[in-house]
């Protein structure tokens, strides 16, 4: 899979296997993720797509019984190396979750949480970060007059964009999104999708979705997972128009899943 436009790979996944205890969840995944693109991961429930996504920022290790083999190289270094700092990885590889999970604090405090724990304390810079991140998440106009109100007073769609803004505040390199619109109404979904298109200019985005139309609409490349295997991975147009694998075709035409 040569890149025509010679973009760099942010992640190179090599022979990745993953087990929850004795159950293997991922089988021998090999996959390059390209920078400044939207990479969609699709597949039926339980196919390992969320597990795979969480492996990229090692959030999967919060389940104590997880074991992995193989390598994931982020910008050339193996993230499973003992010397690799997981906090540093997560600072560069941000994540947006399925359920909006703002902190029970004000909108402002939500956005500055990341910068603050990474040592940025002066008010002027923080104010600037808040405005920039909220604009980046297309939320500034809606909330600029109530930055000090609790983020839980916002709608679900707005909360999800707060989480995106919170992620942008520490200027990551990659943003992982785990079914970010599955808990949202259609209008909020559309807003988040438009936002993803906008964000890929500056960030590399990996998005897990159970919604094939969404993958087709917003992604440049699509990976189809089934039973823990990467079945097919190619340009989104190719994958949806002329899938190489019979199982991919069955899935995208709605024959199962």
């Amino acid at each position, binding site marked *: 899979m040569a890149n025509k436009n010679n973009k760099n790979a942010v992640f190179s996944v090599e022979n990745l296997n993953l087990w929850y205890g004795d159950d293997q969840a991922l089988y021998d995944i090999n996959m390059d993720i390209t920078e400044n693109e939207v990479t969609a991961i699709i597949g039926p429930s339980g196919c390992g797509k969320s597990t795979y996504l969480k492996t990229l920022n090692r959030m999967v290790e919060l389940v104590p019984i997880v074991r992995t083999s193989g390598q994931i190289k982020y910008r050339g270094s193996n993230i499973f190396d003992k010397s690799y700092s997981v906090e540093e990885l*997560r600072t560069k590889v941000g994540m947006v979750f399925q359920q909006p999970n703002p*902190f029970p604090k004000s909108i402002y405090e939500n956005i500055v949480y990341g910068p603050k*724990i990474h040592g940025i304390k002066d008010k002027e810079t923080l104010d600037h970060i808040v405005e920039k991140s909220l604009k980046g998440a297309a939320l500034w106009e809606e909330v600029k007059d109530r930055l000090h109100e609790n983020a839980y007073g916002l709608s679900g769609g707005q909360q999800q964009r707060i989480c995106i803004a919170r992620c942008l505040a520490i200027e990551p390199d990659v943003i992982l999104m785990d079914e970010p619109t599955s808990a949202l109404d259609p209008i909020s979904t559309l807003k988040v999708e438009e936002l993803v298109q906008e964000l890929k200019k500056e960030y590399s985005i990996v998005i897990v979705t159970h919604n094939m139309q969404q993958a087709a609409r917003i992604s440049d490349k699509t990976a189809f997972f089934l039973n823990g295997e990467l079945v097919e991975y190619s340009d989104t147009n190719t994958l949806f128009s002329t899938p190489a694998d019979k199982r991919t075709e069955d899935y995208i035409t709605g024959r199962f899943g």
Partner: protein
Amino acid sequence: MASSKDGNKNLSISERIKKNKETRKSLNIIEKIVPKLLLLCAIISVFVTVGILYTLLSETFTFFAEVSIVEFITETRWQPWQDSFGILSLVSGTLLITVIAMIVAIPIGVASAIFLSEYATDKVRRIIKPILEILAGIPTVVYGFFALTFITPVLSKIIPDLSFFNALSAGIVVGIMIVPMVASLTEDAMSSVPNHLRYGALALGATRLEVTFKVVLPAALSGIIASFALAISRAIGETMIVSIAAGATPKFTADPTQSIQTMTGYIVQVATGDAGYGTTIYYSIYAVGTTLFLFTLVMNLLAQYITRRFREEY
């Protein structure tokens, strides 16, 4: 019986339900009576509370007919046998014990809770929690004995002019007694903070410690403060340990090395002593009891206010 069952089998389910309803009219009566019985039980506790308050207050008024309330509040000597009734001496004793107990209980209790909720594996938690609960089950008289025969001798090696009966030793042991309560309530409050908040912070590159102190503790703060308030109430009301180890010399002092007397200690001393019914000393224990009650009431109200003020809804 069998034949009627067989007969019922030919009926449709809805007909059988209708039939059963008719034969179970008596159930309706139970449905009506049970809530009234439950109400009665609830009312009993209200009556008991009102009764206790009535006794407490009426005897307190009798006391204040004999001793001026101004003297009671401003006088610093409490020598009932010489007709000095200055509650400040007993209050200072109680506060001394409470402050020492909290200095011991809050750090140890909160630290244990943080470990149990954020760091311990399930296996470790299963071992430590029951041990903490055993600590909570030890009778307070044993704690009192422990203070007098173990803590006091150890302390007197460090502080040579420590009195045999002293506030420090009793306060420390009251604190130890309260640790399980603070730990367990704080752990409950922290464990009920949903994991997705922790994940949100971890995904931003926060360390475990940063997640604990900047996300979990603030989110659990209202529950934690409630646990402190309960702990303080418990320390104020603790009787047996202070009766055994803190002494019986009311003193208006902030020096923990001396023998003091708490409000509860005084009540025990008089109630088990030979002060005759109807004497001023007899009535004085009601006045002290009312003061004690006011202290815990204020504590609880304060806790409720702080809880509401600092609540982070999630």
